[in-house]
């Protein structure tokens, strides 16, 4: 029996689903192994008898909560797909301003037509069984997570930071290139995508389980970042975490 899968989206850019669509050959194999029952972005039929729910996006509206709860009731396994679903992602940056202001920035004078609540990860409302972090998700990791689910095991995410993969790739540390980096506190799994291309890590995969944020913030300060800069760094992707307050 092929496991029945459905894909859902909440507040996000749908970029992670795009990664799923872009899997191409790998996707064909996956589709052979799973039975896709519902996927707004890729197919028109839909059925509600799914077992695995891949859920993208963060919860940004009151009306989304019951929809998410219904998915949770149906799914045996609920997977948070991408940074928005996993940590709140970029969306949660708005949590640090009044909601009316956030609405105005996004919708201008139409703001009064929309309701919004602080953006929260799925786990703020329902239990989440597994996550594929990242903005957007790493395709290879996405495939690994799906494989693990098919084998009936909980996919384990690395608990070590991006620095580990960065060192293995023998990159010059971007701190030595005059930049600063969220790598030391960010969960690995992207094969240090950004530092491997000469950019700093922005922390899109969320924090490691035990970040030493105090020590990291001191290092950022030593490298010339102001208190405001440092808060902004932490608020970009992990703003719902305590250390970003």
């Amino acid at each position, binding site marked *: 029996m092929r496991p029945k899968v459905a894909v859902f989206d909440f507040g996000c850019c749908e970029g992670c689903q795009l990664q799923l669509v872009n899997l191409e050959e790998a996707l064909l194999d996956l589709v052979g192994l799973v039975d896709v029952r519902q996927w707004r972005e890729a197919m028109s039929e839909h059925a509600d008898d799914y077992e695995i729910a891949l859920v993208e996006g963060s919860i940004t509206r009151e009306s989304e909560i019951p929809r998410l709860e219904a998915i949770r009731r149906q799914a045996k396994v609920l997977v948070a797909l991408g940074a928005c679903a996993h940590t709140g992602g970029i969306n949660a940056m708005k949590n640090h301003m009044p909601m009316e202001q956030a609405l105005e920035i996004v919708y201008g004078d139409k703001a009064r037509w929309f309701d919004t609540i602080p953006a929260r990860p799925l786990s703020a409302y329902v239990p989440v069984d597994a996550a594929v972090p990242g903005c957007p998700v790493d395709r290879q990791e996405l495939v690994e997570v799906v494989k693990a689910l098919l084998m009936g095991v909980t996919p384990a995410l690395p608990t070590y930071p991006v620095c580990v993969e960065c060192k293995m790739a*023998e990159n010059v540390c971007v701190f030595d290139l005059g930049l600063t980096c969220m790598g030391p506190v960010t969960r690995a799994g992207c094969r240090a995508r950004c530092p491997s291309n000469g950019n700093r890590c922005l922390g899109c995969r969320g924090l490691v389980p035990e970040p030493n944020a105090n020590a990291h913030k001191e290092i950022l300060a030593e490298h010339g970042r102001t208190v405001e800069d440092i808060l902004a760094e932490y608020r970009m992707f992990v703003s719902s975490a305590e250390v970003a307050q």
Partner: protein
Amino acid sequence: MTLRVMEKGDLASFVERLIASEPGAVGPVRKDGKHVFARLASVEDLDLAYTTTLLPPKKYLFPPQETLLRFRLGAPPVVEPVLEAPPLVVIGVHPCDLRGIWATDRAFGDDHVDTNYRARREAITLIGADCLPDEHCFCTSVGSHLPEPASFDLFVTDIGDAVTVEIGSERGRALLERYARSREATAADLAGLQKRRHAKEAAVKARLNVDVQMLPLLLESVSTSPLWEQLGAKCLSCGNCNLVCPTCYCFDVGDLMQLNLEEGERIRRWDGCTLVDFATVAGGHNFRREAKSRVRHRYYRKFQYLMTRYGRSFCTGCGRCSRSCLAHINPPETINALLAEAEREEA
């Protein structure tokens, strides 16, 4: 052992001929203002004016990630070991990194012979080169600043107007005879080599203020030092110090399945004792829960446990961990602070 001498231009043509005739030649090349060991396409790629590379040449013996075997599930399962050991000439290895290879030879070759490591070790030719230190090198404090005769195939030192070549093995001698023009060394060449070595020793600035053989005793007396607490508070548990170290040899093993969920491969990947879950065992218990106990463990590995076992420091003084630790945790300062504390307590 024999000492030979090459004229300066002859070293370049020797390297050129190695690149052209040997199956694989690697050496230090520039990368964003630093150096890494990498494939040499021509002698122009080689830059011997470097202190240390980002990763030590260990990566050719014990790669960051490698496949150990491929398998197909079923009754019975099919298992096929994977062993890749292409011949390689590594040019420009500094004395500290030769000592690093001595250390990994102990770890992978003594009690538990690691087939993959041994095969690659056999396939590698080491051409060492002398160096000048930067502010982090402390090789003289752990006695790894001189090339030991059994640790290389050839070792070159720039003595100003010529280059001396020490021959450390028959393989090295054969390469030299085949590809290089060299002459016998004179007393003046030997004096030049001595002078060059003294100059290097004098240039090493970072140091441990304690005799290397005293390190196990020192560490034994400071296991409850408040310093570990302070270092633990600064440490990011990022693993950088482990990953760049020429003598760290820990790894993690895992299986990677293909999409058909029938075939897969077993891979091993570098691990590090400063990472949070390094000491987490089945059942979830982590017996080095706090950063301070992980940092302390790392120092005990280098300067106590392994030293007691092998009679030599497992730290080569290369300074890579000092250079890559964003929190500035480094062996000279740590050891000297511990020593100062032990001396205070005695007074």
